[in-house]
């Protein structure tokens, strides 16, 4: 084990902690930006440090293709290669292969797919994935799991869950650097609570440094989504970090944190920036909109980032989708927003004002009180009273 997880404060299931990794001491809950090919699109590592980024994600699949894990290893690991002094996490490569490559075929050996470089068949096994990640050198590495989208039903989900458990043993055996890199297991099982439970117990038996909840953020309905998160966080060990993969929207992060999750990753903030959309407390601000062309306010008057301190919506509007600088500035703001959200989650839990933070957050996003039912249900399970932000039911108005 190469990490320490120390809970500093709680509110019911929510917790704020110090996560000590080889390269950095992180504060959770936290959001991890995705640096697909050894870079976060549009930002330098200096800027990432400045906005308070603690951990970034590298994509094993992309890095193994270019520039190859061997080269990264030769040059001293990904930290040195991309000049990032803080913490890093790499995924197994499994998700990209399944989501990017049409002809991927999953067998007990591993994932067979067509190489995008020359079309030849390639096999990614649990052993190979771990070896690649050992060479890349991230603080946290992910087990290769058999990922199935939650919109699929049937025996495939059960098969994938059991295979994930068999593969975790192969990952553990292949892992050559357990004292420098933390191997996280990934809970699969689709939307089936029985399967999820079996998977959790199987992974917990292996006594891993941390656990991820996988297979979500793939288009399932929100009600199913939060229930899976709630079940898994309830069953996973208290004293180890919990990472919900592929999440995402600020609202989802607040709900999952209330339910006891600690870490999140998603391409959404930077990707939506490249389409001209800014993250703001009210939700989204579409800078491409004609109404922005003479709006001389900052994107978010409450935001302290370099973009909001210096630029008007009108100027950003003139840049977005036409000039690269527009994407850069919006990516910067959106990531700052996510880092600030992480800081707010951590500090509000530590300072004993988490419910107030949640209500404030929901009030800004749903000023009319029309909070989605799934959020209300999740908050009830989390034991957080959000009645002050919900509009009264029509019947109550008589």
């Amino acid at each position, binding site marked *: 084990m190469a990490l320490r997880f120390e809970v500093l404060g709680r509110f019911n299931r929510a917790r704020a902690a110090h996560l000590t990794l080889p390269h950095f001491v992180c504060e959770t809950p936290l959001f991890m930006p995705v640096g697909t090919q050894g870079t976060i699109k549009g930002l330098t590592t200096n*800027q990432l440090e400045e906005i308070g980024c603690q951990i970034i994600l590298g994509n094993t699949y992309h890095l193994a293709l270019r520039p190859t894990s061997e080269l990264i290893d030769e040059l001293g690991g990904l930290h040195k290669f991309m000049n990032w002094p803080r913490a890093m996490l790499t995924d197994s490569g499994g998700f990209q292969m399944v989501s990017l490559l049409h002809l991927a075929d999953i067998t007990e050996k591993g994932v067979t797919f067509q190489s995008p470089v020359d079309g030849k068949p390639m096999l990614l096994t649990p052993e190979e994935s771990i070896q690649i990640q050992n060479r890349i050198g991230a603080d946290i590495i992910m087990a290769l799991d058999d990922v199935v989208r939650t919109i699929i039903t049937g025996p495939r989900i059960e098969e994938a869950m059991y295979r994930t458990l068999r593969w975790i043993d192969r990952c553990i055996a292949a892992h050559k650097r357990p004292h420098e890199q933390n191997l996280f297991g990934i809970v699969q099982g689709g939307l089936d609570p029985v399967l999820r439970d079996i998977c959790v117990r199987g992974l917990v038996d292996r006594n891993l440094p941390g656990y991820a909840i996988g297979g979500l953020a793939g288009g399932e309905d929100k009600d199913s989504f939060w229930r899976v998160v709630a079940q898994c966080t309830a069953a996973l060990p208290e004293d180890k970090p919990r990472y919900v993969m592929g999440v995402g929207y600020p609202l989802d992060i607040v709900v999952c944190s209330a339910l006891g999750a600690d870490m999140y990753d998603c391409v959404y903030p930077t990707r939506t920036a490249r389409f001209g959309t800014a993250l703001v407390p009210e939700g989204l601000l579409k800078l491409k909109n004609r109404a922005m062309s*003479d709006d001389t306010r900052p994107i978010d008057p409450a935001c302290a980032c370099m973009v909001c301190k*210096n630029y008007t919506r*009108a*100027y950003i509007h003139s840049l977005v989708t*036409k000039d690269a600088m527009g994407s850069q*500035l919006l990516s*910067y703001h959106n990531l700052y927003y996510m880092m600030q959200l992480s800081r707010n989650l951590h500090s509000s839990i530590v300072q004993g004002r988490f419910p107030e933070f949640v209500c404030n957050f929901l009030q800004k996003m749903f000023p009319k009180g029309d909070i989605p039912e799934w959020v209300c249900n999740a908050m009830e399970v989390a034991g957080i009273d959000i009645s002050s932000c919900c509009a009264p039911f029509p019947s109550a108005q008589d």
Partner: protein
Amino acid sequence: MSSSNSIHSSAMKFAVKAWSNGRARAGVLHLDCCPTPIDTPSLLLSTRKGLPLFISPDLLPSLPSPDSHLLHVSPLHFLEGLSMTTISKIGGLHQMLGLHEYGFAAVPRDSIQCLPEANSTNKVGASFETPCGRLLIKPAEYMEMISSLRPELWATLADEVPAWVSDKRNKTSVDRTIKWLDECIALSPTGGAVFGAIVGGSSLEERQRCAQEVARRNVSGYWVGGFGLGETMDERPALLNAVTVSNLTHIFWQK
């Protein structure tokens, strides 16, 4: 030859520090907005809508200072998506870009995407090929942009022609450029330093004629245009020579 070797305007002060044995000179440019003076000869950073293309504004200070404090701005960039009224409301370039310690030099063309289109230029205005199509810019319109943007220094509107045009067309370009020079000066806002545009294509005589005419006007500097439009590298020194021979002590030229 009179030896005025310094010039003042409200935003800009320039003085020659040293002369070489030839014509080269080292100078220093003081801009009110820049904390330290800028040594000349100096290279301007190219921008797109006011911000450098290659580096975000918060990282600009990591470039060597003060050499990277002069930015070239093309007013034509702002015709896409941002009205002059809005720019005025925001307060001009410095406010809009959040770059308070940088000096802006406005010249219509940017040598990459906004290029003079001599065939479409006429007596009314200068034509440019731009990402938002072909635009005809009249002196009054150009001066409106300058008044909204408020750069530290700006070049007057010119009729730039490629090296292969007829003598007649070349002569016309000089006549027009001088006429527009006077129109621009008449409409110039307070605070910015006017750089008179000098053209003349590949003709030494026309270059000289233009320079002499511009030198008669009350300008703070000279912008030597019309280069990079078909003349050879060998021709340039002589053409520049023809311009600088007329006692011009402060010039900036653009390829």
